């Protein structure tokens, strides 16, 4: 029966080409717009490290002065250098790392290249195993090298190719801001999106990784936000014991169930610091896993969310439009439906027939909408936003396109089909 309904639907499309085209176009426009914005949203709100995002936690303390304290308010989003180094020293989690962004000039020695600037990250040893960074050659540095402020570096695959070509840079030297650093590892292509461990936008490249302790020895340039909040004027903001928050601190726990215990430890640490006179506020700590942290920091740009809302509004208009057109289409065939009813078709069968027709329109609209979405994503990729290059349709979004088109058109078909099945058989025969 389904095949028969389908052939009836196709016959009706042929008879009413313009009306059918209008409906397909309306659904396609709605689906195209919605899928374009949904894909961008999906890409931006994705899990950057799915295998362990539930076990990685971001640590916040509240080192601010007493003034203006309101219980429960959001604490500083970064740690001071003292707290970060102290937590690292106490080593209460299976893995933990402090880190901050930086940058500098790499001066190629042998090749004829001119000096160029690169983004850098100053971190402690657990950074690499904690974030499952893939290594092409060598490995990260050790905790011992953190402690000894070793002049070592891990470089990205791109930088390795630029400096050393095809050969491995491990064991060789890279000059960063005038300092010779011994390369101990080369990362394979690694580009978590968004760069969850330090949210400063998308499409940011870090090519050199250096032990944090070494970076302070060498007074390397740091980048990123810093908030100083003390009563005194701070001279050296990166010194150990100044009230400036600029360090990110991540821990890896064995399971999400360990989080409350670790949070208790942080509260306890905070209270100890208060007892020692360093902190002035009661414990006001946060421990958020990767996805909660991304959500909290509002990692999806407002524009993207706004576009998604607009697209859904647009889809709704397109759907209402389709309902109206389907209604016109079905009722125009009242005579035909009356004949089918008189020949013994039940109401349910008329209903089903109409829904098959609506579904067929939806699928056609889905195909066209997919093309529009691909075009829309191409346009998004041409845009200047830093996330633009990420906008690609993946398998799940492809399936969702057709599911959405089908569901939307079936929903749109329910009311018209309901009206169509009410057509009485006898009346229509008489009036003919």
């Amino acid at each position, binding site marked *: 029966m389904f095949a028969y309904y389908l052939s009836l639907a196709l016959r009706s499309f042929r008879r009413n080409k313009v*009306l059918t085209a209008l409906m397909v*176009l309306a659904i396609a426009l709605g689906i195209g717009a919605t899928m374009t914005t949904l894909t961008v949203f999906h890409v931006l709100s994705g899990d950057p490290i799915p295998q362990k995002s539930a076990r990685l936690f971001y640590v916040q303390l509240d080192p601010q002065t007493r003034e203006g304290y309101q219980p429960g308010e959001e604490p500083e989003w970064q740690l001071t250098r003292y707290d970060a180094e102290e937590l690292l020293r106490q080593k209460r989690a299976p893995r933990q790392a402090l880190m901050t962004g930086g940058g500098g000039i790499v001066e190629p020695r042998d090749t004829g290249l001119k*000096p160029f600037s690169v983004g850098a990250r100053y971190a402690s040893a657990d950074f690499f195993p904690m974030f499952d960074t893939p290594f092409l050659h060598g490995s990260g540095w050790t905790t011992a090298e953190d402690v000894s402020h070793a002049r070592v570096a891990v470089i990205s695959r791109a930088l390795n190719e630029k400096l050393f070509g095809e050969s491995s840079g491990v064991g060789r030297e890279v000059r960063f801001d005038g300092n010779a650093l011994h390369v101990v590892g080369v990362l394979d292509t690694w580009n978590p999106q968004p760069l969850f461990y330090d949210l400063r936008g998308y499409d940011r490249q870090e090519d050199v990784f250096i032990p944090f302790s070494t970076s302070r020895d060498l007074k390397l340039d740091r980048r990123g936000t810093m908030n100083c909040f003390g009563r005194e004027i701070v001279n050296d903001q990166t010194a150990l014991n100044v009230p400036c928050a600029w360090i990110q601190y991540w821990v890896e726990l064995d399971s999400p169930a360990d989080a409350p215990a670790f949070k208790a430890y942080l509260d306890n640490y905070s209270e100890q610091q208060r007892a020692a006179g360093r902190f002035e506020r009661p414990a006001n700590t946060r421990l958020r896993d990767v996805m909660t942290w991304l959500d909290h920091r509002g990692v999806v740009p407002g524009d993207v969310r706004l*576009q998604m*809302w*607009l697209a859904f509004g647009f889809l709704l208009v397109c759907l209402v439009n389709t*309902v109206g057109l389907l209604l*016109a289409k079905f009722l125009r065939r009242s005579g035909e439906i009356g004949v089918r009813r008189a020949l013994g078709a039940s109401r349910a069968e008329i209903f089903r027939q109409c829904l098959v027709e609506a579904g067929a329109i939806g699928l056609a609209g889905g195909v066209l909408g997919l093309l529009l979405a691909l075009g829309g994503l191409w346009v998004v990729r041409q845009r*200047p*936003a830093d996330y633009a290059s990420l906008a690609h349709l993946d398998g799940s979004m492809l399936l969702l396109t057709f599911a959405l088109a089908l569901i939307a058109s079936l929903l749109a078909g329910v009311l018209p089909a309901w009206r169509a099945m009410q057509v009485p058989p006898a009346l229509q025969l008489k009036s003919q």
Partner: protein
Amino acid sequence: MDIKPILSALRRHRVAAALITLEIALACAVLCNAFFLINNRQELMRIVSGVDESATGVIALSGCEGCGNADFNARVLGALRAIPGLRAAGTANSTPFGPRAGYMGASLDREEQHWAGVLHFYLFDAAAIEALDLHPVQGSPFASDDFQPVENFIPTEAPVWVTRALAEHLWPGENPLGRELWSGGHFRVTGVVENFAVTSPGRSEEGVAGAQWSVIVPVRDDAQSGSYVLRADALDLPRVMQAAREAVARAVPEAVLDLQQSRELSELRERYFRSDRAMAWLLIGVIAAMLLVTALGIIGLASFWVQQRTRQIGVRRALGATRSDILRYFQTENFLLASMGIALGMGLAYGGNLLLMRHFELARLPLAYLPAGACLLWLIGQIAVLGPALRAAAIPPATATRSA
């Protein structure tokens, strides 16, 4: 024209009439809010920088070995000042639409009891102030010994200029001259400039209101290095900038020129607002597509009605109705439906705005947008219904005599 027969006809097609009304209402709601968003973006793009952008350029270096050396600035500025056509060049930590270099929280008293907000502190030497063509409209110019060396990143005691907007924000209705600010240093206001935008105007929590929250701090020409402003005649500027990029690369081969930032200010502005412009065009696209879909829906349903009523129209024509009577019937019908839709749509637009206000930092929808959206939809409705109505008017009276 008597609308009673129209209403009674509509009552017999309640579902279809309700659908058109709903579609117009939804379109009206999205339309008003989209217009509002476009206007917000345009307002953002109109922010005044306070600088003649077509006559000002930036040269930025992204750091190097030995950039802090004493002769570094001298080499860069020497190379710049040798360029024919260059009017002035000096050191500046940033410019409007440049990198965020000096955002700091500030307070009005030493004890941090009165919060002033997050302000942008610009550090300029005397030549940079000349290059940016900054003049206080109130107060006095800096004296030569006001330009001090910097220990860390900002002088600990300095006279400063603020913008008029910032002065109005901090000391409403009062004379700002002689007032004090604390923020990593202690500053006394000695001048007020008309406008000077922060590096990222309109992007902070305060939105457009905080766009001019700049403080200008004088520093000595060796206090900072790596970022320079220069001035030339607008016609000359592209050539001067090109020459400047080349001259600096020659003068300090150990440094890396930041090609992203070493641009004319007008280019920096264009790039800064690019995403807003893109968003505005996208909204225009959404509006166009929505009007198109709405019009198509009206055409579809109106055609259906015309076809369904062919016989009745024939009868009316046979009984003496003119073509224009029929035409006007459908136009009036559409106008009634559109009016109902618009009435409902205004409520939806308002509700949608409340929703947007909750999730995005948006102001309340000004009421002026509602009639504008209404007029547009009335117009679209009339245009869309014209085709089917003309077809209806063309139905000959003889149709009445034929069966069905």
